[in-house]
């Protein structure tokens, strides 16, 4: 467990905490980007170079931009005047989240002895990943391709629908 792991882990946790705690939504989106970048660094530390760069491309590049556009289009960057930013049932939600974390932490503590120690760095090249995607995993790849197409067309239709009716 190097010092680099703890620095990146603290950055990721701080970014995600800020993303759900800040009052201003634009600040939340920026903190979310920090959390995604920290996760990409964690993937790189785990010798998963391809997953790390995919994380940067998809999350830091695309999902963060989508979130910023949604904030822009819904004009929700200003904090609400009435009451806080938290729901009326925030206490129940917090208790549920704390209970889930307690269960996960308990399971982790119970299995500490059985977890693997240091293992040799796996040497996985992008060529191997491409071969696996085109060979063994070709059917899931095709399904994900059609899912992405359907999701993007569906998102555009859902976001445009009301406007079309008003124009008629």
């Amino acid at each position, binding site marked *: *467990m190097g010092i680099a*792991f703890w620095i990146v*882990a603290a950055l990721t*946790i701080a970014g995600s905490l800020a*993303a*759900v705690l800040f009052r201003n*939504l634009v600040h*939340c989106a920026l903190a*979310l980007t920090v*959390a*995604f970048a920290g*996760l990409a660094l*964690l993937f790189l530390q*785990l*010798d*998963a170079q391809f*997953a790390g760069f995919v*994380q940067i491309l*998809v*999350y830091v590049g*695309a*999902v963060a931009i*989508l*979130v910023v556009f*949604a904030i822009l289009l*819904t004009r*929700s960057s200003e904090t*609400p005047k009435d009451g806080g*930013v*938290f*729901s009326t049932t925030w206490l*129940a*939600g*917090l208790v*549920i*989240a704390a209970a889930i*974390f307690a269960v*996960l*932490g308990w399971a*982790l503590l119970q299995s*500490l002895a059985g*977890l*693997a*120690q*240091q*293992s040799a760095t796996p040497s*996985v090249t992008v060529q*191997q*990943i491409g071969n*696996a*995607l085109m060979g063994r995993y070709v059917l899931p790849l095709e399904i*994900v391709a059609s*899912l*992405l197409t359907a*999701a*993007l067309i569906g998102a555009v239709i*859902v*976001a445009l*629908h009301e*406007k079309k009716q008003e124009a008629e």
Partner: protein
Amino acid sequence: MMTPLAGYLLVAALLFAIGLAGALTRRNAIIVLIGIELMLNAANLNLIAFWRYGPHPEALTGMMFAIFSIAVAAAEAAVGLGLVISIHRHAQTTDLDQMNRMKG
């Protein structure tokens, strides 16, 4: 003494709990989607960590699972944010406490 795998699993558990707390306690629909994204990312971190410290990393199963999970999460984010924009146009709010009707 913590093994590296335990450290990554602990970070993933914390991220999941933070995402769940955000999704359950915030009023704004966009922050709820941010919380869901954080939970999906925590699952991805678990998959990659188990792939790295598992007995057969050369089989690439955990890596493939994480890559497909990232693709599905991207589709989910696009549709979810499209729905939020659509609801905002319909109800003029993204406050989940005010969305208490199923009739339009």
